[in-house]
């Protein structure tokens, strides 16, 4: 799911008038029916019809946002014809505003908690509840087909309401969500007869001991995609097998670790039309009665259409070669839950010439990355996660692996790389070798760690990235960084929309450089950096044009936060407390602020203070 899409509300150049009229201001010189002066004789509703027929073909959000700013008529008609709505921050507006402006929504994409909540930087029960959205939409959009939620709290009741309110419901995608269990999923499976997509991705799903797989209707289903790898509950395999058999349109299937390799084998034999497979547990059960091991490779060989492979939980590496028959076709491979050594990995990757997306653990080492660089010339996206995610763990990957990748994979667009050691030279090399980079996220796991060869800060390396990668829109920095690095970001990072900073910078100037220099900045998340009131004030001209700003464990005073809140009435300024005694606190623990058209939220928990 890309986070590069722009926000749905148009950049409010005149926020106050928008507040009053809920409409963009119309130039007084324009004629009433804004098409051409010669058509003054046509009644409005004819023009509306014409416009509707034209605007319904507009799909891109940015195009639609632009169209809605032309004049009142266009604003109204665009609102009638927009079928897919993207809301990047669920607290930027109320559900009622959504249903009042857009009348015929079929698809909703909603994002809730800020990303740093994933790393336990926010107490639970902060908010982002689906309940008010689903109850409002239940009345307003009976024809709703698709809901895609990220970091939203969804309860079983919400799911039940969804299942009962939308008879034509087709797609449910829950990414990094929580609050529901298998009982809620069972209701969706049972009631949504037109369901095509049920994707549960990296969500917390409680095990209510409900056999939800058996709750799908008995007849042929419309299922095209079923992903439940994050569901930590055993599965009724017989029911699953039967479901797959009666789902002729099924192309994507992601199993959880409770599905054994033998069971995957059986499923594959019955579903050779799959294009995307997430295997369950990838180990052979030694205790099983069978004398001969099933021919796993044969099952994979039968799946000629598989281009995307993931899973490999609880991997027994000696069974990995079973996937070799499909490797030549793979465009996407996710080994990030499998602890694979370089020796096991290299024979596999050497056959994956078409690979474009590759996720793995750092257990493949620099050696494995060199093998990727040698083979995967089409690589667009690389993510290397740490097997041992602690600051002082061994670092099997380093600048060597990254350098090799930059030399071998020139089409690289997106990098996420966890390591223990890095050099400026490797980053500089990458900045020259990979001009297509739009996403660069480097996590040197030891805090404040410099270039391990020169001992210098990582300023020049990141500076080269922002300077030479002219398409860069997302950046995450780490290691020892001085204000100079931020000076580079402000000077060269003109397209940056998302910036993540941790344990970096020397002074307020660093943040000022970014706030003053990066005009496209939308999402700013900072932790444990020495930025204070001066820096915060320097960005006030930007905050209405941003989706959010997160600053935790910085040097912000409560007084300054209050000043900002007072000066910017359409900005919701949340101060999230910690367990410490508030009186003695010199600095605010966490600041989370975002623009809102409907004022501060009413559901804030006790530990949140809205200034």
């Amino acid at each position, binding site marked *: 799911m890309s986070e590069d899409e722009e926000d749905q509300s148009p950049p409010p150049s005149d926020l106050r008038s928008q507040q009053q009229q809920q409409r963009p201001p119309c130039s007084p010189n324009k004629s009433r029916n804004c098409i051409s002066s010669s058509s003054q004789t046509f009644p409005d509703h004819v023009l509306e019809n014409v416009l509707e027929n034209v605007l319904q073909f507009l799909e891109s959000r940015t195009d639609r946002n632009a169209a809605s700013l032309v004049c009142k008529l266009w604003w109204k008609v665009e609102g009638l014809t927009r079928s897919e709505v993207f809301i990047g921050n669920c607290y930027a507006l109320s559900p009622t505003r959504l249903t009042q402006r857009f009348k015929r929504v079929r698809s909703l994409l909603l994002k809730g908690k800020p990303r*740093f909540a*994933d*790393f*336990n*930087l926010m107490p639970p029960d902060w908010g982002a509840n689906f309940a008010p959205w689903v109850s409002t939409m239940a009345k307003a959009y009976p024809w709703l087909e698709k809901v895609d939620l990220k970091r939203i709290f969804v309860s079983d009741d919400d799911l039940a309401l969804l299942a009962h309110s939308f008879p034509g419901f087709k797609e449910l995608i829950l990414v*990094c969500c929580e609050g529901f269990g298998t009982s809620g999923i069972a209701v969706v499976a049972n009631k949504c007869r037109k369901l095509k997509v049920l994707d549960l991705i*990296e969500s*917390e799903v409680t095990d209510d001991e409900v056999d939800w797989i058996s709750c799908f209707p008995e007849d042929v289903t419309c299922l095209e995609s079923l992903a439940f790898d*994050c569901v930590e509950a055993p599965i009724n395999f017989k029911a699953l097998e039967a479901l797959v058999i009666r789902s002729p349109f099924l192309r994507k299937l992601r199993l959880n*670790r409770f599905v054994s390799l033998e069971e995957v084998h059986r499923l594959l034999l019955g579903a050779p039309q799959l294009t995307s497979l997430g295997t369950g547990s990838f180990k052979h059960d*030694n205790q099983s009665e069978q004398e001969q091991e099933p021919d796993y490779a044969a099952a994979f060989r039968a799946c000629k259409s598989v281009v995307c492979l993931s899973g490999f*939980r*609880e*991997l*027994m590496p000696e069974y990995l070669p079973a996937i070799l028959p499909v490797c030549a076709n793979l465009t996407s491979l996710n080994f*990030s*839950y*499998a*602890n694979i050594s370089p020796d096991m990995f290299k024979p596999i990757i050497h056959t994956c010439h078409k690979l474009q997306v590759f996720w793995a*653990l750092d257990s493949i080492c620099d050696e494995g990355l060199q093998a990727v660089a040698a083979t995967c010339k089409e690589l667009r996206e690389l993510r290397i*996660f*740490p*097997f*041992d*995610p*602690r*600051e*002082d*763990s*061994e670092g099997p990957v380093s600048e060597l692996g990254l350098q090799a990748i930059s030399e071998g994979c020139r089409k690289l667009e997106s990098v996420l790389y*966890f390591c223990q*050691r890095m050099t400026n030279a490797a980053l500089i090399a990458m900045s020259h070798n990979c001009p297509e980079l739009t996403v660069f996220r480097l*996590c040197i*796991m*030891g*805090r*404040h*760690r*410099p270039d*391990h060869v020169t*001992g210098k800060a990582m300023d020049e390396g990141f500076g080269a990235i922002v300077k030479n990668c002219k398409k860069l829109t997302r950046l995450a920095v780490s290691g*020892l960084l001085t204000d100079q690095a931020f000076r580079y970001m402000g000077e060269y990072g003109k397209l940056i929309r998302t910036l993540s900073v*941790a*344990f970096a910078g020397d002074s307020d100037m660093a943040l000022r450089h970014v706030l003053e220099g990066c005009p496209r900045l939308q999402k700013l998340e900072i*932790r*444990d950096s020495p930025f204070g009131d001066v820096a915060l004030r320097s960005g006030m001209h930007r905050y209405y044009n941003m989706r959010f700003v997160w600053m935790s464990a910085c040097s912000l005073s409560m007084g300054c936060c209050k000043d900002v809140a007072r000066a910017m009435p359409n900005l919701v300024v949340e101060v999230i407390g910690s367990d410490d005694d508030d009186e003695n606190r010199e600095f605010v623990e966490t600041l989370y602020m975002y623009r809102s058209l409907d004022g501060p939220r009413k559901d804030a928990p006790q530990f949140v203070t809205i200034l």
Partner: protein
Amino acid sequence: MAYEKVNELNLKDTELRLGLPGTEQVKEEQDVSCVRSNKRQLQSDNEEESTTPPAKTQIVGWPPVRSYRKNSNNNNSVSYVKVSMDGAPYLRKIDLKTYKNYAELLKALENMFKFTIGEYCEREGYKGSEVVPTYEDKDGDWMLVGDVPWDMFSSSCKRLRIMKGSDALALDSAL
């Protein structure tokens, strides 16, 4: 490394610690990170003194890896290991994850290979027993089973070897 060689004296004086020389305090962190950090001590000689970070506690949410992913990796830690016993004709394989502590593991090994093993104590290993359980860790070193906490052992153990007879005695006397 403090826990590396079996025949190194495991005394406080020669114990390698995290922190600059002369400092008394030893951070009571998770044991595993102490072991790891000794390797970093060597590296930090190359780095400027001013940039050597202070002794580290585990920071909330750092490195930024989702708990979902962390938990999955814990499930995936190496489980099946080969077990060889001196004098036995073939090897066995056991799943370390099925045991919660050393007592369970040793009992299972006793049953599997039909031997009895003495009491473990930190100073003298398995004094008085005819066999000594050893294991090969991630670094390729052979260590005595029981020295490190169970979790550290189960995640770093690559294979087990039950040493017998004269080999075992030689090991014991070196301690």
